């Protein structure tokens, strides 16, 4: 018998997949000279998907599809669209739109094949939007892979750039190994519980024999490995610096926001939906990993001289801050993580957009290239300063400040005092390199450099500034949505 599919529920990833196919066909038939059109088509696709997500959000209510029929025991559904899914889909699609804008800027100088680029980008976005809606391990794994594989390809797409291919290889290697580890964990979990559906997983786990608790813990840890890699948590953070520097800037943006958000979505799903019973196991682990991640990220970023590497380690540190609320027993603090994630996405993308702009004139992308930017490009410099201060969590970057306050509140209310103190110290270490970079912007530097205008990237910066300012003035939008 045919399983009924609720096409409205799966509309968003479906649209993305279709547009991806369309882009590939268009690339084949359109004359070589018009890469811009493909960008616009991709952008239209992403915006359409975003529209669908917004419509579903306005419509409200939960949509479930691909469920196990009652005759076979009922229970789990593979694809559920609820509040959590919609917020994350909205975030991913918004970030995707900005990445597309950045890509337009990147592809302008034709060294990268536009068709393949946009196709891969859309595939990654489709996988990313699918992931938050997945409610069983198989879909989760597939969605994770659909997000990861295109990104490796995107990184390696610059054919004649040795560093890009080296970065791609490193990313590929580490990702594949962690996926293997995760799959092994999933297989153990399947063995222990007999089901792949997250809802039924926790019920099954609580009824397993006490003797197997050791195995359950190991299985849980191994399963978390895959997502920890995407989020670049501590044992899995080594690749961040090299890959961000090697990859093209839009891919680095994609990695730092879209794939990280997808990773967090998977992590949250597994921890809160799949393994609420085992909170005593993964609570402390996540807390320790969060503390290590933020510290390692901040400390490594201290002595960076390359802009992208600094942003890499800064995003590792930020994912430490996002991980922290997840450690609170009882999963009440998930909304804080999601809120921080959304605000972080806006700030980080803005920073990447400006770095993209400057990297067009100074490919080496050293911090010294930003010296005296305020005198040459006041608008861009103020924007970057604003984003960095937001990332640091200092007013006038109110968005960053409120995000941190939300996270601090959940940690303190959850009783993790030591983690709060570690985070406070980390905010200070983090402030050091953010403020140092901001100071570089405003110290008097060399005279005006040629200004290469790139409209899509300027638009991306504008969008990021507007969204971040909105979050500064009314963070209530994010808090109520993720609440």
């Amino acid at each position: 018998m045919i399983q009924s599919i609720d096409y409205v529920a799966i509309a968003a990833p479906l649209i993305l997949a279709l547009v991806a196919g369309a882009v590939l066909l268009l690339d084949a038939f359109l004359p070589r000279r018009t890469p811009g059109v493909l960008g616009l088509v991709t952008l239209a696709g992403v915006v359409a998907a975003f529209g669908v997500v917004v419509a579903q959000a306005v419509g409200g209510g939960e949509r479930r599809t691909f469920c196990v029929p009652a005759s076979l025991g009922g229970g789990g559904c593979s694809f559920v669209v609820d509040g959590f899914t919609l917020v994350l889909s909205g975030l991913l699609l918004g970030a995707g739109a900005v990445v597309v804008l950045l890509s337009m800027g990147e592809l302008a100088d034709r060294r990268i094949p536009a068709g393949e680029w946009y196709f891969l980008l859309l595939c990654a976005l489709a996988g990313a939007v699918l992931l938050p809606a997945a409610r069983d391990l198989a879909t989760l794994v597939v969605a994770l892979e659909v997000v990861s594989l295109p990104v490796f390809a995107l990184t390696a797409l610059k054919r004649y750039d040795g560093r890009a291919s080296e970065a791609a290889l490193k990313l590929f290697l580490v990702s594949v190994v962690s996926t293997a580890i995760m799959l092994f964990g999933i297989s153990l979990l399947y063995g222990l519980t007999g089901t792949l559906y997250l809802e039924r997983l926790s019920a099954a786990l609580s009824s397993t024999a006490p003797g197997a608790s050791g195995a359950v813990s190991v299985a849980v840890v191994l399963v978390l490995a895959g997502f920890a890699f995407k989020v670049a948590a501590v044992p899995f953070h080594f690749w961040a610096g090299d890959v961000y520097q090697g990859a093209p800037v839009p891919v680095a943006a994609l990695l730092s926001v879209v794939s990280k958000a997808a990773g967090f979505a998977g992590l949250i799903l597994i921890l809160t939906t799949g393994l609420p019973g085992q909170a005593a196991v993964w609570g402390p682990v996540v807390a320790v990993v969060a503390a290590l991640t933020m510290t390692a990220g901040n400390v490594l970023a201290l002595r960076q001289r390359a802009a992208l590497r600094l942003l890499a380690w800064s995003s590792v540190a930020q994912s430490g801050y996002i991980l922290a609320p997840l450690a609170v027993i009882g999963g009440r603090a998930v909304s804080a993580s999601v809120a921080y994630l959304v605000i972080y996405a806006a700030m980080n993308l803005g920073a990447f957009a400006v770095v993209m702009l400057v990297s067009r004139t100074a490919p080496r992308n050293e911090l010294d290239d930003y010296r005296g930017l305020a005198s040459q490009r006041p608008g861009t410099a103020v924007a970057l300063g604003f984003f960095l201060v937001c990332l640091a969590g200092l007013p006038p970057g109110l968005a960053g400040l409120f995000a941190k306050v939300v996270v601090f509140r959940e940690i303190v209310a959850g009783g993790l005092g030591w983690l709060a103190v570690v985070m406070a110290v980390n905010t200070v270490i983090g402030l050091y390199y953010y403020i140092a970079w901001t100071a570089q912007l405003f110290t008097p530097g060399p005279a005006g450099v040629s200004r290469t205008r790139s409209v899509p990237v300027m638009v991306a910066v504008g969008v990021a500034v507007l969204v971040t300012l909105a979050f500064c003035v009314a963070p209530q939008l994010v808090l109520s949505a993720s609440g």
Partner: protein
Amino acid sequence: MHVVYPVIVSALLFSIGVYGVLARRNAILVLMSVELMLNAVNLNLVVFDIWLRDQLHGGQVLTLFVIVIAAAEVGLGLAIVLSVFRNRRTIDIDRLRDLAERDLTSPGPADPTGSGPIVSTAFGPTGPAPGSTDRSEAG
């Protein structure tokens, strides 16, 4: 046959795969060991599916997916290895060190304000102000 035997075999297979990834320098051989790890997972899944007599055969379905994923990964992995080879003439992983951490990717112009990496001024051994050490009253 008790379920623990195939699980042990799968665990051993996984360990061999891990050893292969760590020990071998050639990228292609590393890819092969990763395949080995994925197949260990498949074995595990199939064994559990049979052992649990799962009506939905979740294990076998997931095995199929894993096989597809493995294939995709290998395809992509080899493509990346190819481009690495074309650019670097080598696919020894531990010789690809171009993206390592170093202080300054290129010897930039000496920083006029003598601050060097920003760090030295704030927390360097010289301390904040050169005159600070002889701050005590002479007379």
